[in-house]
């Protein structure tokens, strides 16, 4: 096992940070061009309904709350993994099981809402997405920990 993370994991944290920043649609700054460009960037990846997105200063993020949760999960997991590198003991099998569980939770959240069993909220969509994002990055960490030196 490697005692220190490879540089590729720092790159992963940087890349996922950039994705979160782009997904936020730069709602925290007054820059209409950035808002429209980021919306265009995610056009094919998300329905972008404003009533399902977080907003700030009157404009909405480039993606819905669930997608933002997934991308935030990427970043949280990638950055957090670097901080607790030595403590990561997950196997590939465990991380795949976690991912399957995250997918199931998201399907249940969407399905239950569509069928009228419950009404999901921005928060529930965000956290369901966050779990999925975290579990996906954990798969990568298992490979980094167990590759030969």
């Amino acid at each position: 096992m490697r005692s220190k993370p490879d540089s590729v994991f720092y790159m992963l944290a940087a890349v996922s940070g950039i994705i979160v920043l782009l997904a936020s649609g730069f709602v925290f700054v007054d820059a209409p061009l950035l808002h429209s460009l980021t919306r265009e960037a995610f056009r094919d990846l998300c329905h972008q309904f404003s009533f399902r997105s977080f907003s700030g200063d009157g404009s909405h993020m480039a993606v819905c709350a669930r997608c933002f949760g997934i991308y935030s999960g990427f970043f949280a997991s990638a950055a957090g993994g670097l901080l607790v590198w030595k403590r990561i003991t997950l196997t590939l099998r465990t991380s795949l099981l976690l991912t399957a569980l995250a997918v199931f939770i998201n399907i249940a959240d969407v399905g239950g809402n569509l069928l009228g069993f419950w009404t999901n909220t921005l928060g529930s969509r965000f956290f369901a997405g966050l779990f999925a994002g975290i579990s996906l990055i954990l798969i990568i960490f298992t490979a980094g920990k167990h590759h030969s030196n």
Partner: protein
Amino acid sequence: MEPREAHPFFETSAIIGAVMALAASFFLYGTLLLFPESIGGLLLACLGCCGLMLAPGLVATRLQVKKSGYTIELGRGALIGFVTGLVFAVVFSFMDVIWALFSINANELLLGSLEYFVREYGDPDAASDMEDMMAEAGSGGFSIGGLIMSSIVIGLLNLITGMIGTAVFKGEETLEL
């Protein structure tokens, strides 16, 4: 260096990206054309297309591992995924132009289906939202800035799926960079 040269990945990645972009475009818009006013069709089209948009990185690393027989390093998996995602994004955007040759406005087709979904779904907030989106789609067109941003985002997401593919798919031997 020999194993890398024996199994070049740029060509394979580009081909996989292009083929999957064609598949995603045909799947998304084909399903919407075949089932224009169907919630099942819309869900199938959107889920299938999103899946196909994130799959290139996984498929490209899987094929690279299978072809070479080596377990590839995470950095190489990331590069393979990024290249595949970039090609995917460019070809997928180009397909919108091809659809336009057959008088099909891909963007309007998707928004039209989403509007139907919103009407059926009956959310009052969504109705005004859809009007804004339709107006925005009508006033906007193909933009180079949008294409570049979209290529970067899809490339970066496939960089991550490429790394996931590297972690999941392993060959019999390990190839060090």
